[in-house]
Structures are given as C-alpha cells and as structure tokens.
C-alpha cells in the first residue's frame, strides 16, 4: 500500500497543538495511575482541594495546564515529573512526539535507575558490545537509552549479534 510522502505531523502546525499533545499524554499517564492505584479522580480532587468538576474539566480539555499545575497534579498522586528533550532523528517532526509510555517502559525495564551511577551499574548493551555500539556523540540519547534494554537474554539478539555474543 502506498504511503503518503512524509509530511509534518499535526503537532508541528503550532505550539498549542504540540502542547496539547504533551498535556494529553501527561493526563493519560495520570489516568493510568489512577486506574491502577487507590486514588480516583474524586480522590485527586480532594487531595488538590478543588472540586471534582474542575479536575474533570482539566482531563477533558487539558489546554490550560501550566507546568506548575502539572507538578501539582502529579505530586498529589505521589508521582514525580521530568521534562525530557530528545533527538529521534526526526528534525522536521513528521512522526510526532514519542509517547511517554515508551520512555517509561524503557526506564522500568532498566530497573528504574535513579541516577547515572544506577544506570552504569545495570547491565547494559553498550557494556556488552562496546565496539559495535560506540555511538557517535551526536546520536540521540533516547536511542542509546532504548538500546540498553531488552538484550539481557540472547533471545532478543539478532543472529548476527548472537554470534558476537
């Protein structure tokens, strides 16, 4: 099936669209935590000291979220927030932002390292195959990050890499 020529992702149209995508993603994470945890939307409203309708309004239309509000909502659920800039080799933004679920899953798979020392201590792909994966410094941190996961057993290695192992 013929694919369209690469074109700008809709989040490239204006900053509001990009912000909308990020805040949607953020609230989707909070929804996931609330579904899995003890605090629901009503409980979140109580913790925040605001009405449930105000919380519901934010979840339905997240455009008014500020960074402070984002932190406030996350902290009310006992969560933390990090802002991540990354280079995914898509400078024209044809594919859109990578979902935070991807970054989170990578972090969890790596054992939730809390700092660079933890990260270094964990078994990493680059440690096992330093020569093959001597990435140039310009390559995205995200790709290196992803490259560190899922290769602790040989099943996920390609035949070529299995030979190397």
């Amino acid at each position, binding site marked *: *099936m*013929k694919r*369209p020529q690469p*074109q700008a*992702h809709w989040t490239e149209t204006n900053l509001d669209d990009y912000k909308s*995508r990020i805040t*949607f993603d953020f609230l989707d994470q909070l929804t996931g935590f609330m579904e899995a945890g003890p605090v629901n939307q009503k409980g979140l409203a109580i913790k925040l000291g605001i009405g449930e309708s105000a919380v519901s309004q934010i979840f339905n239309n997240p455009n008014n979220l500020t960074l402070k509000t984002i932190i406030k909502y996350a902290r009310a659920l006992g969560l933390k927030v990090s802002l991540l800039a990354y280079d995914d080799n898509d400078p024209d933004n044809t594919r*859109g932002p990578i979902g935070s679920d991807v970054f989170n899953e990578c972090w969890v798979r790596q054992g939730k390292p809390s700092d660079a020392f933890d990260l270094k201590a964990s078994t990493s792909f680059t440690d096992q195959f330093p020569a093959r994966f001597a990435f140039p410094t310009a390559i995205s941190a995200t790709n290196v990050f992803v490259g560190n996961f899922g290769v602790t057993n040989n099943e996920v290695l390609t035949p070529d890499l299995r030979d190397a192992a």
Partner: protein
Amino acid sequence: MVFPQIYCVGWLEGHSPSQRRGLAWLLPRPSLAQVDAKKTYYEELDAAVRQNLKNRFDWWLRTFGVTKKEYCHGWDEEGYENVWVFKYREHRIFGFLCHPDPAEPGFLLCVLCSYTIKEGWEADKTLKDLIAAFAVNKKKLTAAIAVHEAASCPHRNEEHKTNEATTTTSTLD
C-alpha cells in the same frame, strides 16, 4: 442502501501512517450524505474539538495492547466486529478497521466514515449498521486500496484538496 460506484480513500493529514497502523477518510463518489466524517471534521468542528480528536487519533496510531474506551473502541457484537469509533465528549467519528494490503498483513487501517453527536446511552444503531455494511463491503474496498496504489482520485479537486495527501480509487463491481 445503494453503495457508491467509486471509493476514494485519503490519508489523514498530519497523521502519517506507521508500518503498523494508518488512518484514512472514506470519500465515496458520488458522495453519500451519511459519509460525512471528513467534511464535518474540517468544516464544522471547532479547533479545540479537532485538537482533542487529533490526540485520540494519535493515541490509537501509536498505542498497542491497551484499551481506553474513553478515547476509542470497537464492538464485540456479531456483525459489528470491524466497526470502530473515536470519541471526544459527545462527538463521535465512526469508521471501520481493515487490513487493506495482503502484502502487509500486519498493517491495520482505520477508514473513517461518519460523524455524529451521541445523544443516548447506546451508539446510533442506524449508523453502526451503515458502517458495518461498509465493513462487509470492505473486501472490495480494500482490494481497491491495494490495487490502485498510486492512482489519483478523479474528483479529488472538488473539495479539501489541501487536506488530501495520497488518494486511491477504484471502480467497484
């Protein structure tokens, strides 16, 4: 229901398909009043609603193995297995799921057909029936998509030409 002679399918602008999933508008020729998703989306919905729908489209394109019925869902009922809906508040965009290219069996396309405002608890059965009929007819439709990869739709300049990326078309039996 008299099905149109020609189907056009246009990619959603700004939502590039991946190797796994894609989104397209159904654009039958001659047009059908009930197949109004694209026209309504671009001409009648306000920007904030569109933005929220875009986020749901985006979520579906990139998410695997997670169900969020508040964003989009299908039905298990017999006859409606391929019907799909995207939701934002009372806004509904109905479409159907298909694997349009036998050479790429892993590629799932959602063809968006109709817009409606949800009024009752249950989804509009008439509309679901219409979409299900398209889904049943999808063998012809998907064959059209697969065979006529690069063809341009003869009517594509009539409307929304700036919003169409690639259009495929075929005359059906």
